[in-house]
C-alpha cells in the first residue's frame, strides 16, 4: 500500500475506529458485519481490491467490529500493516463457511447481540443471519461524513496519481487510437506507480454534438457515462473523461474534456469559458454554513438560468472511501433536500458542472475541494485544462 507522505496511517485507522465505535454506541449496535468493500476499508484500512464483484463477494475480506473492542477483526485479505486482528478467510457465498462466521460473531459479541450488516449474501439469507434489519452502511456513512487531515491527504494523493496517469492517457488519445490504447496508457501508469486500485473502467467517451445524435435517455439529457466495445477516435472528437483511482483506500475523481487531434474551435472554447464561469461562481460561495442549495443557485445563475450539470447526476457529490458518497446536491431529491445539506469543515466534495450547447456539444470537468474553517481548498488542483486555453 502506498502511504502518502505526511499521512499517519495508524492514527487514521485509530480515529476511524473511534468514530465507528461512537456511532455503534449511538445506535445501540453490538457488532457490525461488513461485506461492502468500502466499509471494510473504513473499518480496517484494507483497500478495495481491483477485482470484479463476483470475485469480491466470493473472496474479499470481511470486517467485524464489536462494540467496545480496541481492534476490528479482518477475515481474509492482507492484514500486514493494518490495525486489526487477522482471522482466517471466510467465503460469504458458501453456506458452510457462513455457519462458521455466525459462531465466531456470537462468540465475540454474545449470542443475543444486535448485529448490523451492509449486505446479505444467499447463505446469510438462507440461514437467517443477522436479520435485525440494522443498516451498517447507514451507520458507517454517518462516521464517514467528516474527514480527518490524514484522510484528506490520502484523497489528494489519489487525485495526483489520477492526474499523472491521465497525462499518459491524454498523450495516447490521438486520431486512429482505440479506447484500448488509451486505457493501456492509463492503467500501466497507475500500476507502475503502485496505486492500490483502479476503481472504475475509465471513461473516454466521444460525445455527440447534439443530444438527438446520442443514445436515447429517459431524461432527455445527454447520455454519460456510456460506452461499449472498443471505439476508434477521430480527429475533432470531443471526449469526456472520467476516472477514479484509490490510494490508501481513498478515492479520487478525475474529470476533463479533451478534443482529439486538434485545438478546440471558437465555439468549443466558448463552452469551456462558460464552464469556468460556473465553477468560479460556485467556488466563490463555498464556505462552512453554506448549503447545497446555495451552490446550485450560484451555478444556475452563472449559467444564465439553465441547469449546468447532468440531469441524472448532481452538481456535487461527496468523496472518501467511495468515489461518490453523501452529500449530493442537485439530484432529483430536489431543492429542499439541497437546502438541508450544510457544508462543514472536513467535508470533501467533488464539483462536476457540465455545460451543453446543442449543435456544439458540451464541456464537463471535475474538481475536488475540501471545506476549511474559512472557505475551501482544492485537492490535487492545478491539472491542465488542455487543449482548452485557460
Amino acid at each position, binding site marked *: 500500500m502506498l502511504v502518502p507522505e505526511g499521512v499517519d496511517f495508524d492514527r487514521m485507522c485509530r480515529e476511524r475506529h473511534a468514530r465507528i465505535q461512537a456511532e455503534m454506541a449511538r445506535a445501540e449496535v453490538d457488532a457490525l458485519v461488513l461485506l*461492502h*468493500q468500502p466499509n471494510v476499508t473504513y473499518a480496517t484500512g484494507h483497500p*478495495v*481490491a*481491483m*477485482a*470484479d*464483484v*463476483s*470475485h*469480491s*463477494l*466470493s473472496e474479499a475480506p470481511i470486517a467485524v467490529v464489536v462494540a467496545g473492542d480496541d481492534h476490528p477483526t479482518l477475515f481474509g*485479505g*492482507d492484514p500486514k500493516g493494518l490495525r486489526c486482528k487477522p482471522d482466517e478467510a471466510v*467465503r460469504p*457465498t*458458501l453456506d458452510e463457511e457462513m455457519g462458521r462466521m455466525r459462531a465466531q460473531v456470537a462468540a465475540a459479541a454474545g449470542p443475543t447481540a444486535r448485529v*448490523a*450488516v*451492509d*449486505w*446479505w*449474501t*444467499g*447463505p446469510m*439469507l*438462507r440461514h437467517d443471519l443477522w436479520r435485525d434489519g*440494522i*443498516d451498517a*452502511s*447507514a451507520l458507517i456513512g454517518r462516521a464517514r461524513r467528516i474527514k480527518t487531515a490524514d484522510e484528506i491527504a490520502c484523497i489528494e494523493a489519489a487525485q495526483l496519481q489520477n492526474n499523472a496517469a491521465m497525462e499518459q492517457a491524454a498523450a495516447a488519445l490521438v486520431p486512429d487510437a482505440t479506447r*484500448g*490504447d488509451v486505457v*493501456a496508457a492509463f*492503467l*500501466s*501508469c*497507475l*500500476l507502475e506507480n*503502485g496505486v492500490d*486500485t*483502479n476503481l*472504475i*473502467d475509465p471513461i473516454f467517451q466521444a460525445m455527440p454534438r447534439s443530444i438527438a445524435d*446520442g*443514445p*436515447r*435517455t*429517459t431524461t432527455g439529457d445527454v*447520455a454519460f457515462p*456510456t460506452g*461499449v*466495445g*472498443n471505439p476508434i477516435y477521430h480527429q475533432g472528437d470531443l471526449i469526456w473523461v472520467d476516472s477514479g483511482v484509490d490510494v490508501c483506500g481513498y478515492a479520487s475523481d478525475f474529470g476533463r474534456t479533451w478534443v482529439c487531434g486538434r485545438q478546440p474551435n471558437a465555439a468549443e472554447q466558448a463552452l469551456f469559458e462558460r464552464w469556468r464561469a460556473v465553477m468560479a461562481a460556485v467556488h466563490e460561495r463555498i464556505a462552512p454554513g453554506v448549503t447545497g442549495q446555495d451552490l446550485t443557485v450560484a451555478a444556475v445563475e452563472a449559467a444564465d438560468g439553465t441547469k449546468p450539470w447532468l440531469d*441524472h447526476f448532481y452538481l456535487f457529490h461527496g468523496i472518501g472511501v467511495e468515489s461518490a458518497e453523501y452529500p*449530493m446536491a442537485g439530484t*432529483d*431529491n*430536489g431543492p429542499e433536500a439541497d437546502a438541508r445539506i450544510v457544508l462543514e469543515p472536513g467535508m470533501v466534495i467533488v464539483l462536476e458542472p457540465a455545460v451543453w450547447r446543442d449543435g456544439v456539444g458540451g464541456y464537463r470537468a471535475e474538481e475536488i475541494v475540501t471545506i476549511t474553517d474559512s472557505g475551501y481548498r482544492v485537492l490535487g488542483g492545478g491539472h491542465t485544462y488542455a487543449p482548452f486555453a485557460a
Partner: protein
Amino acid sequence: MSSDDLIRDRFARTRAAARAIDLDILILGRRDDVRYLTGSEQLWTAGTRPFGAVATLVVGSGDLYVLSTWEEGVSELVPFENLHGISWNAATVAGRLGAVPGLAQARRIGVDGLSPGFGQLLAMLAPDAEVVAADHCLDGARRVKLPAEVAAIRHGIGVAQVAMEAARLALSGGVSENHVAGTAVAAASRHGRLQPADVPTVRATSSREFEQPKGSTDTAIHAGSLVRIDLSFLVEGYEGGLGRTVAVDLAGPTLNSERDRLDEAQCTLVARCRAGATGAEVAAGAPEHWLVRGSGMGFELPVIDARTGHEALLEAGMVLSVESAIFLESFGTLSRRDMVLVGDGEPEVLTPPL
C-alpha cells in the same frame, strides 16, 4: 451463434430456473448476474456496490426492467420504456419498482443479495412476499456453459495469454513487480475492451512463507526469484485467466524436478475434473495447496478445496479454474492455474497445454 441468440438463451435458462423455484419476481443487483439475465452491460467498478434493483424480472410475463438512463449497452430484451433511469430519490425508486406489474401481489421474490434498506423497501412494496435467496437458482442456470459461452471464455483466455507473454518479456533486470503488472495489463488492454476479473498479480514468492497476497508491490524482482503471475480479465463479460510461476535467472535440476512434480500434481487434479465426479473425489487427488472453482461471468460455484465443496457434483459443460501449488523451502512457491472444460471423458484444458 450471434450474441443476441446467446443473450436470449441465457435469459430463457434463468427464467426457467426462477420458475422452477416458484418465483414471481427476480431482483438482481450484481453486475455479473444482471448481464447474464439481461445482456445489459453496466459500468465496471471495483469491488462491491450497495445493493439495488439493477434488473427486475417478472417471471410469469418475462418482462424485464433494467436500471439505466440510456439505451446504449442495454440488450433488445429490455424495451426503452422498461428502463429505470438513475435516481437518488427514495420515493422515485420505490415508485418505479412498485409499478412493476405483479410486484405488489408477489408471493415469492428471489434476490441475488440484499441490504437492510432494500429489505425494508421490499417489505413495504410487496407486503405478502417471502424474499428468498436466488443464488442457487442462478448457479443452476449458469454452471453448465453453452457452446457460445465456452467460445467467449476461450477468447478471454487468449487475451490473458497475451498479458502473460508481455509479463514474461518484461521480467528482467531488476524491474519492479508493479512495472511488470502494468506492462501485462496494458498489453491485454490494447486488445480491446476488458476489465479485471481478479487483482492482476505479479509477486515474488517467499522461501519463508507459503501465503502471499494477490497484487504487486514496488519491490524489484531479483535474480533467483520465483515470481507468481496470475492474470484474469473479463472480456465481453466472460472471465479468461491463467496463473504461472516464472523462475528469474534460476535453473537447475532441483527446480526442474520440482516443476515436474507440480505439473504432475496439476495433471492429476485436472484429470479428476470429470462429469460425475464429486468434490470429495477431486480432493482425493489434490496436492499440498489447491483450489478448484467455477468460472464463467467471473467467479462462480462450485468452490472445492481441502475443507469445502466435497458434496459438489461436476457436470459436463462446466468450466473450472484449477490451481495447484507446492512450497519449496529453498526457493519459494511453484504454482499454476489453468482453466478446464469438464466433459464426459477427459477434461479439456483451455489454457496452454501442460
